[in-house]
């Protein structure tokens, strides 16, 4: 029964008992057990990552009215393993003039930046890598390593496409990191903590999505840009830049970038679920068993991942100038205004009952969103009139 309630702790104590029985130092045994736990978590993640390839291919096939992989194994389930074997036995070429050390370091850092995100992701009430009190900022720090890996890959490949693709990707990532940072402040304000677990606990009565739907939406846009997925995949504009920063990578090094991107998407889906949809909480079901909590968390993460895929396979790629205009002149100011309004309303509604607080927050978000949309509408009307002349628009009113 104890195992059912807190499996990790029971297993850890059991293992620690074995290790200290061998005559190991207690502290060292503890670190060793944690090391094994981390290894287990990351191995599970890598296996999950393999199946994400299959999920992604199956779902994109459905979006495009195809069947997807269906030859290797039932429903093509063995297909990703075939892909991996192919990647492993491929020749690993390094282009002439590449900066070898940096070139080989980049895919490792790229994968690492995704894997260390799981240090702060609570997958169940009792299962959390590290209970950092700066969890939200840690996520940005991990993203910084990812940004660095892209610039390293682009620079060291000695390839113009890679360099330009890497630069564009980094310019875009840093641009969208501003709304992302700002939107991370909103759950922090609500929870009064940067700790991921505290943010989940704070959503006991109301999901933060209800308190800040606009914030959740801006955060979603920012994470899609951070991932470099369509509609923001301009670093890999196939017609102009081949494959962007990973043009020169082959074999397993390319595989690391690819697998890293998929796992990153799923991780961000999970973090979106944690910050705005209550993470592993689901009407008290998480109290029944940690296993159920993990299932709830995974479900939310996969729903988030599905939304990211849905956007990717529905939208077309936007140009870099449109992307930058969209970010700097719309998303960034909007996120700052939303932050200020949220902080103000939070202080104004302090001490009111939950339903008043919820309705007030929700309405303030709706008002901010509505004003922003009106501004965009009038801007696009002016742009249209500049091209078509005012007459046509006037006619449309008849």
């Amino acid at each position, binding site marked *: 029964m104890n195992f059912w309630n807190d499996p990790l702790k029971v297993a850890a104590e059991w293992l620690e008992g074995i290790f200290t029985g061998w005559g190991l130092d207690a502290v060292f045994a503890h*670190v060793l057990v944690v*090391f094994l736990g*981390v290894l287990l978590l*990351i*191995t599970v993640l*890598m296996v999950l990552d393999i199946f994400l390839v299959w999920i992604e291919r199956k779902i994109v096939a459905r979006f495009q009215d195809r069947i997807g992989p269906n030859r290797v194994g039932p429903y093509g389930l063995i297909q990703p393993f075939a892909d991996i074997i192919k*990647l492993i*036995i*491929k*020749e*690993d*070429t*390094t*282009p*002439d003039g590449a900066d070898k050390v940096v070139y080989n370091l980049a*895919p*490792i850092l790229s*994968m*690492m930046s*995704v*894997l*260390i995100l799981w*240090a702060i992701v609570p997958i169940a009430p009792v299962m959390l890598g*590290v209970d*950092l009190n700066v969890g*939200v900022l840690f996520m940005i720090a991990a993203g910084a390593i990812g940004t660095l890996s892209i610039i390293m890959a682009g620079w060291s490949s*000695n*390839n*113009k*496409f890679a*360099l330009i693709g890497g*630069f564009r990707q980094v*310019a875009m990532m*840093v641009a969208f*990191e*501003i709304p992302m*940072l700002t939107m991370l*402040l909103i759950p*922090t*304000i609500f929870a*009064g903590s*940067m700790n991921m677990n505290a943010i989940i606990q704070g959503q006991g009565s109301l999901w933060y999505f209800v308190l800040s739907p606009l914030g959740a939406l801006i955060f979603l846009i920012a994470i899609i840009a951070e991932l470099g997925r369509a509609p923001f995949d301009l670093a890999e504009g196939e017609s102009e830049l*081949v494959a962007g920063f990973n043009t*020169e990578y082959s074999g*397993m*090094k390319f*595989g*690391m970038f690819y697998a890293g991107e998929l796992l990153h998407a799923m991780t961000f889906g999970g973090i979106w679920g944690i910050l705005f949809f209550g993470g592993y909480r689901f009407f008290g079901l998480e109290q029944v068993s940690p296993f159920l909590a993990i299932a709830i968390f995974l479900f939310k993460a996969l729903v988030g991942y599905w939304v990211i895929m849905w956007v990717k396979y529905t939208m077309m790629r936007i140009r870099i*100038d449109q992307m*930058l205009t969209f970010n*700097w*002149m719309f998303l960034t*100011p909007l996120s*700052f205004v939303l*932050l*200020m309004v949220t902080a*103000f309303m*939070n*202080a*104004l509604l302090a001490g009111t009952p939950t339903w008043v607080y919820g309705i007030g927050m929700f309405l303030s978000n709706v008002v901010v969103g509505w004003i922003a949309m009106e501004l965009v509408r009038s801007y696009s009307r002016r742009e249209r009139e500049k091209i078509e002349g005012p007459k046509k628009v006037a006619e449309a009113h008849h």
Partner: protein
Amino acid sequence: MNEWIYVALFMIVGAIIPIGAIAAGFIFGPKKPNPIKQSTYECGIEPVGDVWVQFKAQYYIFALVFLVFDVEAVFLFPWAVKLGQLGMYAVVEGIIFISILIVGLVYTWRKGMLEWS
């Protein structure tokens, strides 16, 4: 003991896994380099000129504005953590803080530096 030791463990394991995967590719893959295979990919055409092309100076502006707002966020995170207990004056301070920086954003914008030209 310090909780960051566990973060270090995550970093070590997070580095070991990709190194292992790449090493597997290195061990099992064929190695038959030749000059054409090793040459830089430029859609099948022979590489023209040096790779280190001159870049648009605007990339610098994007990184610059990002840096400024990054530091701003660093100041705002402690503010946001305590906001619920501090009352209205802290909110006003934060709003002043953000507004001052928005002035900078507007200046850069009016200078046309945030447009892709």
